[in-house]
């Protein structure tokens, strides 16, 4: 019996992005919740967020980012050994977004699967992609972070919905002659499962629709189960204060561990790309990590909002467009979110 031949190194070969074209301003948000542009900017650093219209699906965005990443990497779909999509907003429990995406881009019969790790999903995907390439299992892996969060928000609630945007970011990972992806520091803490979560499980919709059939009307059934608002569709909520504390102080430790694992000092970094959750979290993390001023910090959140699994590849794609001199430099990336889950690694920018 033989086992696959190990490879020593892997790296990210190219980044791709898809940003949907509906711009939601803070003024728009203030039609739905009582707030102000100033309040939102001060608390979150967000000025606009991009959202996809009804005619743009999660897969459309994933495809756009994937094709961009493949073009930048110079890799054809037929060369892909695996397609991974990180998302929490694919509207089908099965089949996966990844299988459909692989078919759309012409990567069939590459193995394809989704990762559900919310805002850490992209870093989980990079951990998987790196492992698949270095184990010799495949040569090239496509990792996509794609979210249509606007399908899972309630614009009138004020814990999380106004932060969120849609979009997709992607990378192609492949073999390298030199180290390109540092050890992944990743994990979970399910004891904080409900700190960021959906209002209720999808099975409630089924229960209610069965009750509606029996009662003869939806409103009668809703009254029976105490759902007067008819809010059948589950949407996201968070306990912002708890999340903030965990995201800054616990995640700064994770980021430091990722640096240590890679044998990299803060002053060796060219860029820092944390998950774009809130500008205040980003600012506080920079402070905690004592990053030197020459490290370029991704602040894509100001225009893009929080796009969950898409935020890190989107923000990195933009950094490379605006600062091409970062190419070849080291970037510390860290994702963290609902689960709770987290993942971080140092990568060489293509």
């Amino acid at each position, binding site marked *: 019996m033989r086992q696959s031949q190990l490879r020593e190194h892997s790296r990210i070969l190219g980044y791709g992005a898809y940003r949907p074209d509906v711009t939601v301003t803070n003024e728009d948000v203030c039609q739905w919740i009582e707030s102000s542009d100033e309040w939102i900017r*001060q*608390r979150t650093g967000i000025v606009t967020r991009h959202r996809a219209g009804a005619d743009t699906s999660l897969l459309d965005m994933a495809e756009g980012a994937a094709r961009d990443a493949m073009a930048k990497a110079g890799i054809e779909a037929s060369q892909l050994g695996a397609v991974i999509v990180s998302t929490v907003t694919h509207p089908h429990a099965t089949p996966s977004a990844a299988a459909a995406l692989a078919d759309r881009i012409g990567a069939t019969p590459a193995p394809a699967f989704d990762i559900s790790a919310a805002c850490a999903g992209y870093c989980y995907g990079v951990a998987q992609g790196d492992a698949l390439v270095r184990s010799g299992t495949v040569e090239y892996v496509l990792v996509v972070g794609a979210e249509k969060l606007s399908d899972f928000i309630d614009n009138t609630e004020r814990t999380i919905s106004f932060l969120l945007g849609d979009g997709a970011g992607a990378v192609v990972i492949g073999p390298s002659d030199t180290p390109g992806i540092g050890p992944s520091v990743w994990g979970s803490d399910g004891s904080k499962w409900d700190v960021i979560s959906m209002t209720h499980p999808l099975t409630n919709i089924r229960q209610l629709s069965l009750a509606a059939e029996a009662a003869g009307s939806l409103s009668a059934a809703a009254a029976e189960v105490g759902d007067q608002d008819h809010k059948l569709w589950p949407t996201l909520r968070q*306990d*912002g*204060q*708890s999340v*903030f*504390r965990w995201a*800054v*102080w616990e995640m700064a430790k994770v980021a430091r561990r990722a640096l240590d694992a890679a044998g990299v000092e803060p002053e060796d970094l060219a860029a820092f790309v944390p998950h774009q959750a*809130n500008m*205040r979290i980003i600012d*506080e993390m920079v402070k905690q990590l004592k990053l030197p001023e020459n490290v370029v910090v991704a602040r894509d959140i100001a225009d893009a909002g929080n796009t969950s699994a898409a935020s890190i590849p989107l923000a990195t794609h933009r950094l490379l467009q605006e600062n091409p001199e970062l190419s070849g430099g080291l970037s510390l990336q860290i994702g963290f979110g609902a689960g709770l889950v987290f993942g971080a690694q140092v990568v060489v920018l293509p």
Partner: protein
Amino acid sequence: MASNEEILAGLAEIVNEETGLAPEAVELDKSFTDDLDIDSISMMTIVVNAEEKFGVRIPDEEVKNLKTVGDAVDFIAKAQA
């Protein structure tokens, strides 16, 4: 272990660093949100810095009960005892 006066002075320093408010504005009867205009995110930063400074643990669910500076001083003093 710090006296209540020392805890107040230490808290005032932390609040000053986070918000720029003059330390003497941080008085026992002042409400963090209404009088000192400290938002929930700044409050968390203050809480974490206070934990470090005074060697105590202030759980998330307890933070909501710390309405005034005096509440925070009392909690820290009890936690240190």
